[in-house]
């Protein structure tokens, strides 16, 4: 019960309010910080890890959005992440169309697919939904494994990208220093967009549907399409992460579609705190670095992560983000306000 009271402290900003001026300053500050970071941090290793962490953060944001806005827990978001990768890689491998087109498709196709799937599966509640997404994700994974002639099977393959994309040298997407800025901007823009979205009617209505689908219907709302849209939006964000990942690594493999990746994304989202918009992204970054550090320290990193997961979730059930917010509120009882 106590959690409910706490979580209400984290609940969304007042309804309908226009974004306050401070949110714009936060946006500007976040963008500037991202642009400056590569200037300050000179270690390529650190930047490349940061880049990958931020991409992980975007994927976690996708999963977190679905939990937060629709109450749906996806075990299959790797599907959208990986599909984006294959949408870039396969046309290049088989010489179908220019990479510029592929990149657009890589984001658009998983989104559309998710919307159509969503129309069918968002009706299915609870754990069954998770298992369905898992099944769908695994179906793609399985396909990528088996359609060896098309996809290269479990070994995956390197993506041959042209020298320039949209007139920008491809190099930009593969140098950690520049890719970090791109990924960071993407993350900030996504978070900000979602922040605005939760204040719209769409955001509020989907929250209501999440809370009580039946009553929403009896208030005159069609409840399937909005949830399918949230699912699609979440897939879109996952696909953006996948696109960035594929461009950066210039390599795809069925692992990008595997449920263990979906699982990691879910872990990141929850560790970060799904009540907060930026919680999952934070969780993504923290988890990435923690895993990296643990792997560096000991061969027993899985146990270390396992123990940490247990301790963190028992101690901070609202996630790192939730804990931070509470800390801030305690320090500044008057002004503790959070991003919706």
């Amino acid at each position, binding site marked *: *019960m106590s959690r409910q*009271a706490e979580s209400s402290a984290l609940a969304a900003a007042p309804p309908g309010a226009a974004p306050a001026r401070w949110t714009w300053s936060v946006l500007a500050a976040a963008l500037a910080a991202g642009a400056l970071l590569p200037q300050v941090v000179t270690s390529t290793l650190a930047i490349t890890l940061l880049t990958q962490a931020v991409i992980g953060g975007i994927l976690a944001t996708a999963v977190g959005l679905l939990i937060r806005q629709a109450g749906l827990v996806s075990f299959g978001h790797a599907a959208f992440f990986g599909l984006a990768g294959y949408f870039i890689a396969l046309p290049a491998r088989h010489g179908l169309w220019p990479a510029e087109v592929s990149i657009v498709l890589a984001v658009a196709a998983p989104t559309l697919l998710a919307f159509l799937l969503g129309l069918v599966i968002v009706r299915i509640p609870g754990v069954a939904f998770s298992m369905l997404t898992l099944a769908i994700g695994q179906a793609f994974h399985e396909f990528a494994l088996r359609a060896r002639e098309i996809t290269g099977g479990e070994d995956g393959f390197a993506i041959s990208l042209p020298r320039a994309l949209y007139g920008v040298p491809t190099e930009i997407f593969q140098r950690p220093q520049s890719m970090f800025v791109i990924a960071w901007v993407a993350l900030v823009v996504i978070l900000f967009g979602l922040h605005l979205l939760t204040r719209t009617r769409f955001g509020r209505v989907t929250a209501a549907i999440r809370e009580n689908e039946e009553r929403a219907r009896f208030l005159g709302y069609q409840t399937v399409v909005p949830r399918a849209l949230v699912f699609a939006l979440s897939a879109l964000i996952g696909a953006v992460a996948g696109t960035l990942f594929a461009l950066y690594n210039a390599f795809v493999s069925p692992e990008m579609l595997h449920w263990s990746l979906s699982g990691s994304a879910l872990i990141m989202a929850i560790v970060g705190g799904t009540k907060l918009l930026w919680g999952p992204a934070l969780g993504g970054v923290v988890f990435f670095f923690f895993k990296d550090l643990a792997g560096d320290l000991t061969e027993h990193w899985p146990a270390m992560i396992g123990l940490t997961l247990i301790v963190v979730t028992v101690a901070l059930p609202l996630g790192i983000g939730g804990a931070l917010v509470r800390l801030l509120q305690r320090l500044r009882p008057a002004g503790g306000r959070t991003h919706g």
Partner: protein
Amino acid sequence: MSELLGFRAVEAGYGEARVLHGIDLAVGENERVAILGRNGVGKSTVVNTFLGVARLRAGEVRFRGAPQRSLQHFTAARAGVAVVLQGRHIIPNLTVRENLLLGAAVRRPGAWNLEGVFELFPVLRERADTPGTALSGGQQQMLAIGRALMANPALLVLDEPSEGLAPVIVDELAVVLRRLADGGTGLLLIEQNFGLVRRVAERYYALSKGQIVDQGRLADLSLAKLKEHVAV
């Protein structure tokens, strides 16, 4: 007369919020006590407190005179206190019969058994093998009451038991509760239907904003006071 349930300076609430501010009350064997008060004053929280659902922040809760260190959900039942919860709380995937049997999970010796409950609410017998939640609202209320009776409690706590019951059934309920009390069962009744309260209870506590603002014999309750507490 020994005390079955006692509150001493109880403060309790949910999360950080405090709802009860220093409640003292006692229900003894054979006693028929009512808690009166408007919506939201904390009547159900009194129940939730001794059930360990709301958090006890200060003070003391006693069952049969024994102070309770930690209030588990099941402590009350084991002390012979059965509760009809507000909102019924019928267990969905169990049949009517199973819901009733569950009420006998901890059971004191006594007269109430399946037969007795079926006698009291014949419709439950008719529908004994349907899922409890397939009953109509009022039928579920009967089930909730029957389930509490199955324990043969020393103290029966009812949180708005008349809700959703047809008037004739409320009449019957009044008779049953009187009969119970005559048989030695203590009663703690939280009720908005003053007709029922009047027929059942002999003593009352009036609650307002989490505090007991008045108490006494029901017979002595003046109309003015009644208006004030229950806002008739």
